[in-house]
């Protein structure tokens, strides 16, 4: 129990340290030939997208477990992961258009990748709205939305390969030169550590809230 309570602060400190170091590594990476400086947004934009997809999977799997077993722990994990999909998805949907404004000349294009990413984000916003406003029993409906949201992730990921889009395709990461690969994977690791720390903290908050609800119910009895 003590090791678990120490895990989150350690993860947070390591992630924060890595994120502070990241700009120096990014600065040392070469400029991209057509986009120049604006391409540096890539080193935060793509890891945020990867974390968003990961969190959508966590939410979907936890939701499926909740639907099957009605496990409170699975429910806590699902709502925590859904909240993080919204947070990291917001980062993706803001940093992407900032990059696009310079690279493509427009803030937004209704192409397959951008539109499907926005839809995915809206699905998890609706998950949170259901949990917040739909009252007792909304956990089941929200869990179904979580599973549906997880099912959308492969479509979002493969959209750039299947449809003609303005967004770079999935080959970009695999084809990075070593000087760009190092800062990219550094940022990805930092974001993943941060995600795990935030997820564990949010799950603890949700479990405390469930304890509080149980205590209120006991008082009323």
């Amino acid at each position, binding site marked *: 129990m003590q090791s678990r309570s120490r895990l989150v602060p350690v993860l947070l400190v390591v992630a924060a340290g890595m994120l502070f170091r990241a700009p120096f590594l990014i600065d040392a990476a070469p400029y991209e030939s057509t986009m120049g400086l604006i391409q540096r947004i890539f080193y935060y934009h793509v890891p945020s997208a990867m974390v968003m997809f990961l969190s959508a999977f966590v939410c979907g799997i936890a939701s499926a477990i909740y639907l099957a077993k009605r496990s409170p722990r699975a429910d806590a994990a699902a709502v925590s992961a859904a909240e993080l999909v919204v*947070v990291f998805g917001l980062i993706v949907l803001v940093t992407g258009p900032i990059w696009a404004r*310079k690279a493509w000349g427009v803030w937004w294009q209704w192409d397959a990748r951008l539109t499907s990413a926005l839809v995915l984000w809206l699905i998890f916003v609706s998950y949170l709205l259901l949990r917040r406003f739909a009252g007792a029993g909304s956990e089941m409906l929200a869990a179904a939305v979580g599973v549906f949201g997880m099912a959308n992730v492969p479509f979002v990921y493969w959209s750039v390969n299947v449809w003609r889009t303005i967004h770079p395709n999935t080959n970009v990461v695999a084809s990075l030169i070593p000087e760009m690969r190092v800062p990219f994977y550094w940022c990805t690791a930092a974001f993943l550590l941060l995600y795990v720390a935030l997820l564990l903290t949010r799950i603890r908050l949700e479990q*405390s809230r469930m304890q509080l609800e149980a205590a209120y119910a006991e008082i009323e009895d």
Partner: protein
Amino acid sequence: MVGVLVVAACLTASAFAQQSPPAQPPAAVDEFVPMSEAAPREVLPATPLVFYAYGFVWVALLGYVFTIWRRMARVEQDLADVQRRLKDAGAAR
């Protein structure tokens, strides 16, 4: 016969009147304009955009951490209050 000629003349006159002047070919380029004299194109500086993007990431993450910390503090305080009330109620019985 005269009537036919008049009508034909009128139709021909109206056709000439409606006809638009022949399209003029574009003026040939007669000089090259050096870059310094060309009309300024939009030049969007990348540096502020990169700062805005990175700044937003930090604001979003720190803001979320702050909201979790505040919610956790509120829940833990409420939980402590409720547990104290339950303890008092148990002692009173």
